[in-house]
């Protein structure tokens, strides 16, 4: 009987970013409505709500498929994801007008300035964070759903 491994892989993948989205949305709403900052939530929330969970789910499906042929550790598989998601996120935010690339650094949402030397450090931190998330959280969910070997 078909146990729908890819459906379960997708479901396991989307859990973490979806839960994090709730936290992100709460903070977003507090920032917008409590501090009265002019921030278009409806445009800003598209990427973390629609893109990131789906990418996580599809990436986990890819892991399950590749794992049948190649014993790649899930942590390393997840660590590759920010190399794809990072540039896409930056491109998205630039296109939506939330990110300005200035001579002094990146300005997010017109309020937060991040110097360029932060950007040199960020990919390594992103790789580490994604590695830990995929190894311990997504890996755990895969075991719970019975799709991990």
């Amino acid at each position: 009987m078909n146990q729908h491994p890819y459906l379960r892989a997708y479901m396991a993948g989307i859990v973490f970013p979806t839960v994090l989205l709730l936290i992100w949305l709460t903070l977003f709403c507090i920032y917008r409505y409590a501090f009265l900052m002019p921030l278009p939530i409806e445009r800003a929330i598209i990427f973390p709500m629609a893109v990131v969970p789906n990418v996580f789910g599809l990436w986990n499906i890819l892991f399950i498929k590749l794992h049948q042929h190649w014993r790649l550790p899930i942590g390393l598989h997840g660590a590759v994801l920010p190399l794809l998601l990072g540039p896409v996120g930056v491109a998205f935010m630039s296109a939506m007008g939330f990110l300005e690339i200035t001579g002094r650094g990146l300005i997010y949402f017109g309020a937060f300035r991040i110097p360029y030397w932060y950007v040199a450090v960020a990919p390594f931190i992103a790789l580490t964070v994604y590695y830990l998330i995929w190894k311990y959280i997504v890996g755990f969910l895969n075991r719970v759903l019975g799709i991990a070997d």
Partner: protein
Amino acid sequence: MTTDDHEERELGTALRKAFPAVDTELRRDLWPEFRRRLEKPAIRVPWYDWALAAVVIVSVAIFPKLVLWFAYQL
């Protein structure tokens, strides 16, 4: 023997014919599987993963604005 007893026996026979007995014996011994689960160690976090987690925490403490970026990308 009353008519009710007779009918009851006939009903029982008809039901037993319609619903055959179910095999309630276990098809396999579950004890070895249970013992494997007991002996399986809990999730162990290797030292380098602890080191990586510490690096992330220290990095966030030094560069707090990166939290915004990760919050959006995650």
